[in-house]
């Protein structure tokens, strides 16, 4: 029993190590082809990335990425591809900003109200896709992508001067949240870290607990592995689809909160977009594991932080995008390779054990 665990640990470590080595090798070749020294690039990245203010920047950048990855991972664990996190977090943040801007309450009530509105709107938006899938069999990939576009248009309609927003220079945004709605910050020697990182960590723990320590999580993973088996053992797959879409959407609702409550204090035309798609890459990279995704989100932030610095050293701006893509591909391929290798090794071992048993019984028969 103990030996199997050790093998499993080695196999578990093999995949990420293999992926990182392969990704480094490929990016080195790519940088080399552009006529630059790859090792100097890594040196610049490590040096710049380890500065104190870089670390603050990376953590602040990784917080929404991590929340987005959690939202995507909930779906992934049951083979449900919620591609619509992008639309869900934006529409959630928008309506949360509208509600927050209209209210003036003490912070202890105001902040939870904003967060709850965001989670509810996110859940609602994702729930539409869940309902469409269970009632009409619409593939969630299609419906969530369409809902992204619809969400953007809904925001575009309301985000106009005189509707739910107002004009400030060339920017149009919802009214500012009152000061009481500003989320706390963790001061450091340089710039502060957004306090929302605490919520993100809690969300990660909740994700782990929900999936690995509850009946619901067990059912969810079962549906992910085999829908028919789950159905046969009495799990209502339809209800699971809707519920997990709602959870995924509620988590997506949190994605915009670090920005809304910590930086912009409004939803404007300059609100960040595309975090939902980054979340897909990070969930893949972190293998849906709460710790793995946290590391992946930090890696993403690190690459983005140091990419700008590479530009100063004369490297192409696109290099970082290439590195990110290569890493995700390498991770997906490495895990598949290691999984197959592990499966083969297991089969071989079982075969050997069976053969040994057979030999033993043969001998017993002969001697008898």
């Amino acid at each position, binding site marked *: 029993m103990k030996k199997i665990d050790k093998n499993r640990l080695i196999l578990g470590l093999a995949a990420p190590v293999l992926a990182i080595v392969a990704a480094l090798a490929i990016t080195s070749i790519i940088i080399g082809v552009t006529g630059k020294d790859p090792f100097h690039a890594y040196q610049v990245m490590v040096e710049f990335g380890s500065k104190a203010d870089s*670390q603050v920047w990376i953590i602040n950048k990784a917080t929404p990425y991590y929340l987005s990855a959690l939202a995507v991972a909930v779906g992934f664990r049951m083979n449900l591809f919620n591609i619509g996190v992008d639309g869900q977090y934006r529409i959630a943040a928008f309506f949360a900003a509208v509600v927050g801007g209209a209210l003036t309450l003490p912070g202890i009530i105001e902040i939870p109200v904003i967060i709850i509105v965001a989670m509810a709107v996110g859940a609602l938006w994702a729930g539409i896709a869940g309902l469409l899938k269970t009632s009409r069999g619409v593939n969630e990939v299609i419906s969530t992508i369409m809902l992204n576009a619809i969400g*953007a248009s809904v925001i575009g309609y309301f*985000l106009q001067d005189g509707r739910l927003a107002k004009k400030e220079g060339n920017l*149009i945004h919802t009214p500012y949240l009152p000061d009481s709605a500003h989320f706390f910050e963790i001061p*450091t020697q340089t710039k502060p870290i957004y306090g929302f990182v605490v919520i993100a960590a809690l969300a990660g723990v909740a994700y782990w607990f929900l999936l690995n320590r509850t009946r619901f999580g067990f059912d969810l993973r079962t549906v992910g592995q085999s829908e028919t088996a789950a159905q046969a053992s009495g799990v209502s797959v339809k209800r699971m689809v809707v519920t997990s879409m709602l959870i995924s959407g509620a988590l997506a609702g949190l994605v915009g909160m670090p920005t809304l409550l910590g930086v*912009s204090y409004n939803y404007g035309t300059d609100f960040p977009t595309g975090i939902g798609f980054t979340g897909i890459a990070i969930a893949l990279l972190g293998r849906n594991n709460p710790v793995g995704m946290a590391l992946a989100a930090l890696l993403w932030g690190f690459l983005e932080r140091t990419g700008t610095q590479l530009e100063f050293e004369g490297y192409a701006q696109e290099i970082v995008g290439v590195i990110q893509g290569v890493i995700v591909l390498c991770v997906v391929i490495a895990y598949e390779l290691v999984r197959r290798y592990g499966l083969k090794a297991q089969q071989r071992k079982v075969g050997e054990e069976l053969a040994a048993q057979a030999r033993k019984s043969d001998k017993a028969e002969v001697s008898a």
Partner: protein
Amino acid sequence: MRRVSTITVAGISTAALAFTLSACGSSSTESSGGSGKGVGLAFDVGGRDDHSFNESAARGVDKAKKDMGIDNKMMTAKNGETEADREQRLTSLADAGYNPVIGVGFNYAKSIEKVAKDYPKTTFGIVDSVVPGNNVDSITFGEHEGSYLAGVAAALKSKNHKVGFIGGVNNALIQKFQAGFEQGVKDTDSSVQVTSQYLYPNNDKGFNDPAAAKDKAKGMLDSGIDVIYTAAGLSGNGSIEAVAGQKGAWAIGVDSDQYQQPGLEQYKNSILTSVVKNVDVAVYDLIKSVKDGKPLTGEHKYLLKDDGVSLATSGGFIDDIKDKIEAAKKKIVDGQITVRTSP
């Protein structure tokens, strides 16, 4: 076993994080800027070669290099950036010693305001927005006035009495183009029908998506519109391409004199005129002022009367209606016509 390892990994990573945070006291931004390494130019999406807005700013920087030997560093935004990305870009430029540091596009408004405070010795420039700060030069243009003249030209040149406007993103700045254009058309010939459409309601990708502009322009051409004015940065190339595919239709360019753009040469006979925004002049003025030790700060408006905006005449396609355009221009300059800034 498995649970233990998960907990160990979590513990180690948290400890590592805490350690690196507390141990590394050094910060990447220790100098206060101000030393003269040249001009730092931060572009909005689309990059330097958008044949339009960014390229106009780049021309000013190129001219400074030619005339005064001032070096430069140009950096470009990606689609879907956050405030942190923009701040970092400006901080890196200021920290590396570039002065002035210019944010090309109103998206940089908030980040310029923040970063300018951290680098009081560096002069910052912002195009298309007004930002407070003692070391910030806010450069704005009279786009609505230039667009009015484009409206006059469009109304006079349309055979079907149908003209169109395509905006990249439905925001306050692009609405200025729309408002001026619509007013110019209606004041010239109230029987001409104007259709105004946007590529994206609120995604800055609208300035970086030529395919979307091409589709939109095709749709307009199919409905009988024969003059299309596109204010969408790099996306405008797609619209010009679509218009060039239809005989007798005209495209109106924006920001740069797009007839003169080498990258658009094959379509140039369909480019009626362009509403030129002299970003290059403004950028050059700022660079020169910093070099002379008297940096420009505060708000600077480049209007029609200052030749901050103008209607390009290359190609000679609007020579026949020159008098009418000049008359309209005079009315605006004299204040007889006030051009609206929102539709």
